[in-house]
């Protein structure tokens, strides 16, 4: 069965996000009011030939931790669902 995993990587709250800061600043300059802060992360989609979901999830957790994110400064959220 085909599975789809969506990994969202975001910076930990304490980590400076220059990208977000620059966008927030630009919005402010454009006259957009009320934006308190902007944080930018990564959205990663993986299509996987499924199998045992538990094992798959464990594997995905591992690659999210080892490769897709840097635990030193980022958090990730894993969403695993059926379908391509």
């Amino acid at each position: 069965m085909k599975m789809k995993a969506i990994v969202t990587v975001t910076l930990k709250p304490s980590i400076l996000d220059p990208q977000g800061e620059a966008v927030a600043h630009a919005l402010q300059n454009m006259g957009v009011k009320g934006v308190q802060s902007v944080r930018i992360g990564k959205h990663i989609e993986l299509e996987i030939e499924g199998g045992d979901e538990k094992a798959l999830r464990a594997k995905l957790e591992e690659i999210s931790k080892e490769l897709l994110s840097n635990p030193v400064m980022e958090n990730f959220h894993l969403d695993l669902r059926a379908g391509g």
Partner: protein
Amino acid sequence: MRFAVIQFPGSNCDQDCVHALQVLGQEARLVWHQETKIDPEEGVILPGGFSYGDYLRCGAIARFSPIMPAVKAAAERGQVVVGICNGFQILCEAGLLPGALTRNEGLHFRCEKAYLRVETPASPFTSHYVTGETLTIPIAHGEGCYRASPEILQELEAQQRVLFRYCNAEGQVVPEANPNGSSHNIAGICNAQRNVLGMMPHPERCCEVEMGGTDGRGILLGAAGIGRKI
């Protein structure tokens, strides 16, 4: 001729452009991005750099800066507008040129000399050259991979709006000579009116022998409306 070199807060080739223009006997003034006026007699240069940090997308924020309406107006009036590197990215984001510049195919920033084939002398910027002439002009970018829809690419080609392509030392346009994966090896294009140029390579970096070459002179002199000396 006098040029307005637009200075975004993160521009870093602005002074280099001013210097190169002065070496070529032209006048240049820096115009801060928060200004709103460009003289109807001036040429406009959007220099290289990282306009607003360019973290989101190169040039994405710059297109909203206060000076941009004046740049658009200048382009519509037929004044020359040259976007170099980040300037090219801004022109695309602002819709003054079609297409977009994406991350280099090799993913790395690349700073090196590149060979460019001049595709047509039919523009102020290429008036100093003949078709097929090879120029050596440095590149320095991480996001210089030119992308556009097949229709746009076809239109650019049909209207001979591709002014420069990456080629090898022998002048052949081959995939190995493409430093960033640009479609059709595109290094520089112009608008339909042929007064707006966008190019990733840096002509201002090769206007003096001591900087390693003078192949960029013709582009800037051409922009200044100065014909080729025979």
